[in-house]
């Protein structure tokens, strides 16, 4: 692609799913208005949701899902050795995601509950960076296609890739939403990375933190807020552990 004296190479990209719902990959085919332009930037080598063709030569690997079986570990390690850039794609890949709820119970019980009378090999759920080196994380359950598009355009053009460092509150206030704390809810918006355009809170659903912590969150002040407003500790624990995205902060007892 030759633009304004520069030649841009298409991204040789492959998309892989692990333990997940494949919803994040599906987002790649969303946003129809720019879909053809978007695919024009990419040389898709493997992406089973849109093509049965498979090639092993790729530079960028999008990894969707968490890692919960030994064969997934081996497959991921192979992909890592092939890819120049490995992107953790979506909340499950970045933090473990909803799948991590499994880790709260003994593995035996979990298997017996879901697959009774069937031998199933399973491991504790891990995020991608627990297994291989991750070069870039794109957060969200699901990822925001607009953000994915912006990041991939930056990769094509060699521009700096940046994610918002501030929390969801900024975007929520731009939309003139009433703060959900003022409506008596616990919302993780004040400690969660923005970029989602406050989609849940605009629909009056409290933020569950799918994009993980914003930078330099003030957890003691946030816990004090929950205490001071006499909000439910159980509700808080359920929300903060929902996506396993606040693992580093859950040692705090409110």
């Amino acid at each position, binding site marked *: 692609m030759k633009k304004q004296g520069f030649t841009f190479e298409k991204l040789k990209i492959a998309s892989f799913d692990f333990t997940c719902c494949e919803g994040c990959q599906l987002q790649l085919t969303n946003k129809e208005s720019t879909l053809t332009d978007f695919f024009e930037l990419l040389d898709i080598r493997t992406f089973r949701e849109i093509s049965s063709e498979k090639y092993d030569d790729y530079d960028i690997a999008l990894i969707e899902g968490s890692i919960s079986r030994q064969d997934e570990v081996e497959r991921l390690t192979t992909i890592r050795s092939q890819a120049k850039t490995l992107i953790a794609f979506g909340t499950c890949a970045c933090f473990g995601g909803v799948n991590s709820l499994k880790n709260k119970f003994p593995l035996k019980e979990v298997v017996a509950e879901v697959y009774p009378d069937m031998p199933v090999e399973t491991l504790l759920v891990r995020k991608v960076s627990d297994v291989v080196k991750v070069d870039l994380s794109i957060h969200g359950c699901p990822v925001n296609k607009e953000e994915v598009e*912006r990041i991939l355009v930056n990769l094509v053009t060699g*521009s700096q890739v940046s994610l918002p*460092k*501030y929390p969801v509150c*900024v975007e929520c206030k731009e939309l003139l939403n009433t703060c959900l704390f*003022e409506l008596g809810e616990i919302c993780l918006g004040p*400690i969660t990375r923005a970029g989602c355009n406050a989609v849940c809170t605009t629909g009056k659903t409290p933020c569950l933190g799918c994009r993980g912590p914003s930078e*330099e969150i003030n957890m003691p*002040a946030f816990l004090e*807020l929950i205490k001071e407003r006499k909000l439910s500790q159980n509700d808080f624990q359920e929300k903060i552990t929902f996506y396993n995205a606040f693992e580093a902060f859950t040692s705090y007892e409110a």
Partner: protein
Amino acid sequence: MIYKIISKAEFKKFIDALVRDNTSFGPRRVDTDCRGEKVYQFLQVASFNDIAFDYTATASSAKHFFLPFCEELSRFVFHDQDWDQHITYETNPIVLIGLRACDISAINILDDVLLNGNFPSPYYLGKRKNTFVIGMDHLPLPDCFCKSMNHHTVQTGFNIFCSDIGEEYYLAVNSSKAFNFLKEFNTRDPLDEDNCRLVARRKLISNSFLSEVDVTGLPSILDIEFDSPVWEKWGNKCLNCGTCAMVCPTCYCYAVEESFETNLKGATRQKRLYSCNLVNFAEVAGGHNFRPKNGDRLKYRYYHQHRGFAENDNQQICVGCNRCGRACLTKINPKDVINDLRMEKESCMICASPSPDRT
């Protein structure tokens, strides 16, 4: 200024006509909070009845009608070896109904920053000149401190300002556009007793303030208290969420970002309102952050609001609406922070004993 009296029934006709023919915004109730208080915002209205004329204060200010939270500054189109830049300042005229005196004062302050300086903003000018502002007086909320900032009345910056004098409104008409439009409706010149009713109304408003913040000499107190532990104390409460600046009627700081279009045939330059409390507000190229601590960032918000402009332009840019104080989840508010700073100095015991050695 021309003064007129209009009956409330006629005022309804006036507003209905205005709203029917123009894109209009006014206070509307959007929620009731968990304490049973009604929540209002400036939203689009289609008739008089859409407007909550009995509203108290909106949760967010009217700033974004002049300074959108996100705004495209320019668009670039690439050719083979060259590019064109396209800039649009045009904007559709709007009517803003129901702004409080402090809200209008805030716009006047934005005028000083964005129009009256060395580099006037054409983006702002386009919106400011195309907005018809109707102000309404009101009885202060318990935490309003605009009187302390001398912004509980306003003399300029609006087209019409309405004072509630019972069955009628006392109108201050401040533009020929407003004057000509009002000719279509029944108004009369004020009589002596109307003037008395206006004075009584103003007195009532002025005497209804429950919150007071002593801002005399505040700029120099802020200078003296640069290293005060008060900043760390309040900074420890700060969630770095930026809410205070988002709802503030005068916070205008912003970030600029340029991005390619997906087809790589062009690019856009976007402006986004930012907050000095956000963690990377003072982060520069290479990653160094000049204000990595909560307390430092909070301090600079107060410095911008209460010191910087007072030194340069003889006015603080806070108008005392207390939207930031109401919106802050951890109860950081100008009244308590400023009083804390004053207490810190006034109860200081250093002068009673010899000054400590400079380090």
